[in-house]
C-alpha cells in the first residue's frame, strides 16, 4: 500500500489485510468501523466482548502486534498489516491452555463476560513477567473490570498458571 500514493488519500473505506490467530483475512471496512466490530461481526470471532464501549472495562482486550490494547479504541483500518491475537487463539486443539485451565480450577469466573479480556491481559503479563507477584498481577488487570468475582480468584488463577504456589 505504501509507496503508491494511497497512504496520502483520505478514504471512507479501504481493503485491509489482517492476521488474526495465525489466519490472514482480507476485508473491505469503513474507516469509522471499530476494530472490535471487525473481529466480532466481520470475522465472527465473538469471544472478544463489548462491555462498556467507552474504553473502561477491558472486555474487548486483544493483543495487537504484541501489545495489549482495547479493541474498542482502535479503528479496524488501523489493523491493516497487523497481527492480532484473540481469546480464540489460546486453546490448543480444543484443549484449554494452562491459563484457561487455571481460571477453571480456581473459579476465576462467574458470569464469564470479562473472562476473554482477563485472559488476554494475563497472557500479555505472563509473557513479560513469567512469575509475577500479586502486585504485578493486580496492576496488569487494572484495565479489566469484573463485577462478579471480587478479583481474588482471578489473581490466584494467574499466579497458579505461572507455576507459583497459591494459598487457597
Amino acid at each position, binding site marked *: 500500500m*505504501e509507496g503508491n500514493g494511497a*497512504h*496520502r*488519500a*483520505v*478514504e*471512507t473505506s*479501504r481493503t485491509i489485510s489482517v492476521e488474526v490467530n495465525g489466519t490472514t483475512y482480507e476485508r473491505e471496512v*469503513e*474507516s*469509522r*468501523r*471499530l476494530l472490535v466490530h471487525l473481529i466480532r461481526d466481520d470475522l465472527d470471532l465473538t469471544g472478544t466482548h463489548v462491555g462498556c*464501549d*467507552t*474504553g473502561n472495562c*477491558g472486555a474487548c*482486550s486483544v493483543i495487537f502486534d504484541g*501489545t*495489549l*490494547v*482495547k479493541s*474498542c*479504541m*482502535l*479503528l479496524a*483500518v*488501523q489493523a*491493516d498489516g497487523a497481527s492480532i491475537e484473540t481469546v480464540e487463539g489460546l486453546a490448543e486443539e480444543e484443549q484449554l491452555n494452562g491459563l484457561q485451565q487455571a481460571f477453571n480450577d480456581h473459579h476465576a469466573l462467574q458470569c464469564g463476560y470479562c473472562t476473554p479480556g482477563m485472559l488476554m*491481559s494475563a497472557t*500479555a503479563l505472563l509473557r513479560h513477567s513469567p512469575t509475577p507477584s500479586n502486585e504485578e498481577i493486580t*496492576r*496488569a488487570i*487494572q*484495565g*479489566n473490570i469484573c463485577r462478579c468475582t471480587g478479583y481474588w480468584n482471578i489473581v490466584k488463577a494467574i499466579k497458579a498458571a505461572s507455576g507459583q504456589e497459591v494459598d487457597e
Partner: protein
Amino acid sequence: MLLSEVGYARPATLEQALGVLGENLGARALAGGQTLINVMKARAAAPDALVDLNGIPQLKGIELGSDGTLEVGPMTTYTELIASSEARARPILAEVCAQIADVQVRNRGTIGGNICSSDPTNHLPPVMVAIGAQMTIVGSNGERTVPADEFFLGVYMTAVGPGELLTKITIPPGRSDGFASVPIGVDGTCIVNAAASANGELRVALGCVGAVPELVRPASAEPEAVREAVRSAGIDPPGDVHASADYRRHLAEVVAARAVEQASKRARE
C-alpha cells in the same frame, strides 16, 4: 458503537501528514486514540477525517543530549517512555506516565496525545509547565517553538493550530521534580493534581482547577509558603460530582505541598 462517517489517511511521513491536514481543515490528527475515539463515540467531536500519525517513525522515540536535554517524539507511547533508559534522565516523566489509566491505555496512548488533547484533568500538561518543556510545532509556515506555559490555551485547545502538528517536546535537564494527585481510584482520572520542579527556581503547576495548568511560584519550599502561594493564585476550580469547588481549592493546596516536598527531597539527594 458506530462512529459518524469519517475519512481516514495514514501518511508515512511528516510532510505527507501536514499535506493532508492542510488540505482538509476539518481533519484531526489521530495519535493513540485513547481519548479521541471515545470523544467521537460520544459525538462530542466529529472530524471529517482522521490523519493517523502511527505510521510516521520520525514522530517516535526519545533522545538524550550530552547536556541532559531530552527530546521526546510526541508519538512515543506511555509504555515506551516508561521503558526508556534515556527518559530516566528526568525521572518524573516515567513516574507520572506509570500512573495514567491502565496497561492497555498506556500501550497505545501517547505523550503528544495527552498534551495536545489539553483535557484539564490530564497528567502531563501540569508536568510540562512545571518542568519548563518547549513544544516544537510544524505547519505550512515552518517551525516554531512554544514554551509549555504558553502552549495550553483552553479546554481541548493548544497553540497547535489547524494544519499544524506538535513534532517534538524538548525537556531541559533536571531531576528535582515532584507530582501529587487525588485521583478517582488508583491511577484514575485526577480530581486535582500538581507538578513541582525545584531545579533552580521553584515552579508548581496545578491541574484540574482551571481550563489550563495554573503556574504558581512559591517563595520557598516550606509547606505553608506553598499553600499560601496556591491560595493567593486565586484559582476558581469547577465543582462536580467528585468534588465541590471549595474541596478542589483545598486539595490544590495539599497536592501542591506534597509535590514540592517530593521535589525538595530529590534536590537534597
